């Protein structure tokens, strides 16, 4: 593996840590009442965000979901703006009006986080199609959950993408549950990559806990899209370590399931590899975690100081004209 590749993986390790510790902090802030309403955290799924988004160019597009904090961070939304958003500050990435479910950075090609299941897919499709119409080779990435593959817009979007050879990569984070309901109760198959067959596009099963595998699969799909060869569907097998949202204790998990998946913690897996190859020793990993923790804590503190939005401010967000 080349030095750059090694460096990139050390960087990925740091980014996964940032996401992990960010989300843990969010949970804390939620318990303290500083983050209100709801949160949908992504601990356990960090390799998907990091591996996938590292495969994009700056002029590519993406849409995410309410469970998109990791993706927003990885796309370069500042952590302070994220914390501030969660605390309803006008220094937040959506000026405090969006909250946990709507992290967006149009200037970074992050064209929305949607709280309606499936709603992000058409938007990403439109962005990718727009690139095609404008003669650009930008592609779009869109993230959704396993449960979202049961809603109409999922199939509607895949259909158009394939019929018109749009450069888009559909990423399904299959974390085995839609809210409290296991996939198998609502869905007749375990491998959602199969759904690509209904739309004549490649469907690939990817180990979502292995950041290298994610990166490789997404890179291939992105290259395909960029070359004008059309869309791909990638199913990331993954797991969320926390409940669905807020304080969900996730009592619906069968015994031992969480523990088995914790053994496949993407941060631990990459850490072992990096330690093994000597790229980042266990000691260095501990130090990095401490550093990131300090950064996270300090950033959260700073974010708390952000100003609250005024009603006049937010009125101006309703209409542009």
């Amino acid at each position, binding site marked *: 593996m080349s030095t750059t590749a090694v460096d990139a993986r050390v960087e990925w390790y740091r980014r996964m840590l940032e996401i992990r510790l960010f989300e843990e902090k969010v949970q804390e802030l939620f318990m303290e009442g500083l983050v209100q*309403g709801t949160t949908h955290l992504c601990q356990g799924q960090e390799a998907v965000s990091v591996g996938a988004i590292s495969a994009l160019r700056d002029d590519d597009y993406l849409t995410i979901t309410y469970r998109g904090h990791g993706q927003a961070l990885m796309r370069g939304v500042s952590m302070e703006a994220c914390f501030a958003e969660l605390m309803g500050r006008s220094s937040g990435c959506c000026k405090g*009006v*969006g909250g946990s479910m709507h992290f967006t950075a149009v200037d970074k090609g992050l064209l929305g986080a949607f709280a309606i299941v499936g709603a992000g897919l058409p938007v990403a499709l439109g962005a990718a199609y727009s690139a095609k119409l404008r003669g650009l080779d930008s592609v779009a990435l869109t993230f959704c959950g396993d449960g979202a593959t049961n*809603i109409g817009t999922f199939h509607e979007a895949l259909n158009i993408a394939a019929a018109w050879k749009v450069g888009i990569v559909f990423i399904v984070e299959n974390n085995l549950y*839609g809210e409290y*309901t296991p996939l198998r109760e609502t869905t007749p198959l375990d491998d959602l990559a199969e759904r690509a067959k209904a739309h004549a596009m490649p469907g690939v099963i990817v180990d979502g806990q292995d950041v290298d595998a994610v990166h490789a699969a997404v890179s291939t799909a992105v290259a395909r899209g960029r070359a004008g060869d059309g869309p791909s569907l990638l199913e990331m097998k993954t797991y969320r370590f926390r409940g669905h949202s807020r304080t969900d204790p996730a009592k619906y998990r069968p015994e031992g399931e969480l523990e088995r998946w914790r053994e496949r913690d993407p941060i631990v897996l990459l850490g072992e590899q990096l330690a093994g190859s000597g790229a980042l020793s266990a000691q260095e990993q501990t130090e990095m975690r401490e550093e990131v923790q300090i950064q996270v804590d300090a950033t959260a503190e700073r974010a708390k100081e952000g100003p*609250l939005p005024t009603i006049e401010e*937010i009125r101006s967000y309703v209409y542009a004209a």
Partner: protein
Amino acid sequence: MSTQLESETSALAEDTVEMTYREAVNAALFDEMESDSRIYLLGEDVANDGGVFKTNAGLPEAFPGRVTNTPICENTFIGMALGMSVTGLRPVVEVMFSDFLATAADAMIEELPKFRFMTGGQCSVPVTVRSIGGGGGRFGTQHSATGESWFIAFPGLIVASAGTPAGAYGVLRAAIRHEDPVVFFEHKGLYARKGHVSRGEDQIAEVGKAVTLRSGSDVTIVATLLMADRALQAAEELAGEGIDAEVVDPRWLRPFDLPHIHASVARTGRLVVAEEQVHAGGWGATLISSLTVAGVTFEVAPAIVGLPDDVLMPYSPSLEDAIIPSAAAIADAVRGLS
């Protein structure tokens, strides 16, 4: 019955007990399911841990096989309910957040209300859609609509709501028993609210009938859902100032009980509408217009307390609170009349 929710109240069945709005919903579902084996519950996560809002606690255990978790596809599972209803069942569908009714709007607008009509009255469509709406929960722009007026323009449909625990019990049971499709709105901000509820068949509300929650002679406040609750608080506040407010919960938004409110306004001469929605297109506007067209002339122009028209529901907690009418805002509107 084994659930905690129920055991709290079962000893007092047929008597008035104090229970939360959530418990009242649960009790209505329980009592209806017990009285009619054709009733089935459907919706996302409805059978897990009481459902997302815990309104269904104990039901899967009490009625095995009759509470089913659906995939995420509101339009299809409501369309399914139509198919179930015309083949002898009486489905009750839960739509977790009222905003998701938009996803299901074809079923809600084009199918449920029209099916009986366009087949020449061949059958009835006894489907109940329970939908949980309302702000104040910091759920942000896509999870806070009450949705209560989204479907008032569709003949064929019944639109219902409840502003109190007793209303939740009586109206929901009436909705489930009704032969026509009903969409019943609950407010998530009311679930923890307590009130006196009597259980039993005789507590089933009459379809289309408003209720006066508080009698008064000086002004009529018409309010639904959370606003009904706040209107009652406002009335208390006003009582201290010698203003005697009548509070009416219309409950049914289609058909709308115009005579009830007309009579009240005829007595009080003054009207305030409190609604957690913008004025445009709502039942409040429809009410005031209907009265005006009917020739009612107000000594003092009626007032509307509602969501601002120039902003959407923000996440930011302080602004969310500022935007949703408070009891004080309702009281102020009453004071502003004179």
